[in-house]
């Protein structure tokens, strides 16, 4: 049964019919018909942010935490351009998102009208796809297609640009929401190729020094439980990318930690010496491979990914398998189960034992120390803060982060035991992502503990959202590793530019974050003594403060560097491990 609605009402109805719970946005002229339609309904809740960039990160955090698409509404011109950073962030990490932007009326497009920006043009390189609505009659179909494209295949953001005349309350058309869409030009692969899968099984079973390297595709593609089953069945070591953390339990003995530029010694050594690499939902990013020419010289590479364009882009795959990660892993797991039933001693147990011994030696020699306790009178090291956070939250929080040293410390020291608990901007590395993405996750899970690990630099890029937290009662716990510097920049300047800290410090002009938190109606603590850390952390996550935003400003040692750090131009086994080795540093990237 169809109804007759205006474009504005249709748009909102389509969101309802798509099952959208939250719409993160900010109003303005070109979007006002839509805002009026929102006002006249109850099903979709609009969340008023304080900056459009934050709206996109909120939607993004919601999507990462739930797997459902995040939805954003902004006005034309500055509203739309403010959203671009968040769209690019979602694009780089393949996050499903639908962004609706108001546009000037159709007959004014191209005239440099007030608040006109060519949003399709501006966003084109950072969207999976985009639509311009031509008349209100096509709104239902466009919305359906946008959600379909955003959530299937390799997910990503989709922009719908909506000229104001197409939402005019005076113009109506028939509305009915399609159940499905058929697009001849868009048919993502679902199942992996059977022959390739059989070849992969053979290689997995005959490997002597295997390594499973899994990325964000396992988390976003809901493949974590299958991956865990496969890894346990085979007994192989597993490393995760920055985006893949939680795809395999971080507290499992088979987990060797994150790999890459700031990966663990054992993960990077293991990769370099492996004879077989099973790469799943990972894209051989330059922050992982280091110099591709020197990458894993002995390894046969099996690569499973939803996106054919990610395969053999940087490192050529010996056995490429294109398909939805969850599907392919389910199939692979079944095949392995059968193979091992038929041939119980197919795996080379002796070789694997020897391989694990080498890995344990690497781990013992240079693995991360997960038990660094604060000592009275000594500076607080940032690693300790993450370890303290891990203890205070029982390892069970949803943790978002900003970008910088604190992000790497969080990735290294918080052991994520489940997928979708670690939310960070990996591909674009967007400072300002932490707080709004935490808020998006908290909307999705109001009763869970959501912690945002941030740096004072990143936090100041979107701290206006403290006001939104108050409005919607979002009890985010913000743990700020305050090193009074753009720490990651400073680290590079220490290592590569003779310690010349060009525009990376501002210790004399930092605000008092405790007072800032309080002035926004929240709770603030400032900790600069090691002996106070553990108590303050416990209080932050205490039952008394469960319903409050708490800003825990921890003044940490400003000279700490993140290690290991890969040596530019080298292979994965080339790493600086501490300040002594990096004093011989050449140049970095």
């Amino acid at each position, binding site marked *: 049964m169809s109804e007759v609605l205006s474009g504005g009402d249709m748009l909102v109805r389509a969101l309802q019919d798509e099952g959208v719970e939250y719409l993160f946005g900010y109003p303005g002229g070109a979007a006002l018909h839509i805002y009026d339609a929102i006002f006249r309904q109850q099903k979709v809740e609009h969340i008023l942010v304080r900056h459009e960039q934050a709206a996109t990160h909120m939607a993004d955090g919601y999507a990462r935490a739930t797997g459902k698409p995040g939805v954003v509404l902004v006005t034309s011109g500055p509203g739309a351009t403010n959203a671009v950073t968040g769209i690019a962030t979602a694009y780089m990490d393949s996050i499903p998102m639908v962004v609706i932007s108001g546009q000037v009326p159709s007959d004014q497009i191209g005239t440099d009208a007030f608040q006109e920006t060519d949003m399709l043009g501006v966003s*084109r390189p950072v969207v999976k796809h985009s639509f311009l609505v031509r008349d209100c009659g096509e709104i239902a179909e466009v919305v359906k297609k946008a959600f379909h494209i955003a959530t299937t295949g390799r997910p990503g953001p989709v922009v719908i640009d909506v000229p104001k005349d197409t939402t005019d309350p005076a113009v109506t058309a028939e509305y009915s929401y399609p159940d499905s869409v058929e697009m001849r*030009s868009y048919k993502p692969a679902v199942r992996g190729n059977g022959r390739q899968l059989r070849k992969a099984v053979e290689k997995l079973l005959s490997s002597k020094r295997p390594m499973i390297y899994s990325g964000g595709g396992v988390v976003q593609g809901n493949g974590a439980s299958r991956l865990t089953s496969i890894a346990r069945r085979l007994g192989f070591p597993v490393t995760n990318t920055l985006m893949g953390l939680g795809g395999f339990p971080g507290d499992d003995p088979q987990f060797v930690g994150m790999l890459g530029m700031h990966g663990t010694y054992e993960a990077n050594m293991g990769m370099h010496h492996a004879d077989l690499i099973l790469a799943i939902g990972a894209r051989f990013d330059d922050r992982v491979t280091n110099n591709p020419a020197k990458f894993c010289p002995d390894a046969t590479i099996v690569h499973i990914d939803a996106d*054919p*364009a990610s395969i053999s882009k940087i490192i050529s795959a010996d056995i490429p398998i294109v398909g939805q990660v969850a599907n392919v892993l389910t199939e692979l797991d079944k095949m392995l189960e059968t193979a091992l039933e038929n041939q119980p001693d197919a795996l080379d147990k002796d070789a694997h034992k020897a391989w694990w011994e080498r890995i344990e030696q690497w781990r013992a020699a240079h693995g991360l120390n997960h038990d660094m306790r604060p000592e009275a009178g000594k500076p607080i090291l940032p690693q300790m803060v993450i370890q303290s956070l891990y203890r205070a939250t029982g390892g069970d929080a949803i943790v978002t982060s900003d970008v910088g040293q604190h992000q790497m410390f969080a990735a290294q020291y918080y052991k994520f035991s489940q997928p979708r608990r670690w939310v960070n901007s990996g591909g674009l590395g967007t400072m300002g992502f932490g707080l709004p993405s935490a808020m998006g996750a908290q909307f999705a899970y109001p009763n869970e503990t959501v912690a945002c690990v941030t740096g004072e630099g990143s936090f100041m890029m979107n701290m206006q959202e403290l006001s939104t937290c108050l409005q919607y009662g979002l009890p985010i716990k913000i743990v700020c590793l305050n090193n009074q510097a753009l720490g990651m920049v400073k680290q590079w300047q220490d290592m590569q530019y003779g310690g010349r800290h060009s525009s990376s410090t501002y210790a004399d002009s930092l605000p008092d974050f405790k007072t800032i938190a309080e002035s926004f109606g929240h709770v603030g603590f400032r900790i600069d003594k090691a002996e106070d850390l553990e108590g303050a952390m416990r209080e932050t996550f205490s039952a008394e403060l469960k319903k409050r935003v708490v800003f825990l400003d921890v003044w940490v040692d400003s000279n700490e560097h993140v290690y290991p750090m890969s040596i530019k131009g080298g292979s994965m086994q080339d790493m600086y491990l501490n300040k002594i080795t990096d004093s011989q540093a050449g140049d970095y990237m």
Partner: protein
Amino acid sequence: MRRIIAVLLENESGALSRVIGLFAQRGYNIETLTVAPTEDETLSRLTLTTSGDDNKTEQIVKHLNRLIEVVKVQDLCEADHVERELMLIKVRAEGADRAEVKRTVAIFRGQIIDVTTNAYTLQLTGTSEKLDAFLGAIGSGLVLEVVRSGVSGIGRGDKILSA
């Protein structure tokens, strides 16, 4: 290596800009580009020539396929194919040059499609090499203006590229 890539894409505004944008964004070069609707007016056919090794071409094809509006992509150089380019060229034609130009046009099976007292407008079709060779034969001294359509290509035999 030179490649001829044929693309079928939805005949919608904006689709072409995505293809061009992809090449700019990923640093692939476009040497020639032609595009027009097909017998099915909801589809456009685009032919572009670029250069690169097998790896790069594979990436280009994959990324083109990733664009939502792209229906089919084919690297025509992977199999037998025919390629043609159309060239319109205006040359100075005075005195003895008039006869000389005419002879050269005949050798290359071109046509004179417009004449004035001191110029000829010529039309030539063929592979890009043939058009280059013609320009070489005429000599740059006489050439006043050149318009080339860019390469169009189609596979030989029964194989077709369709949606």
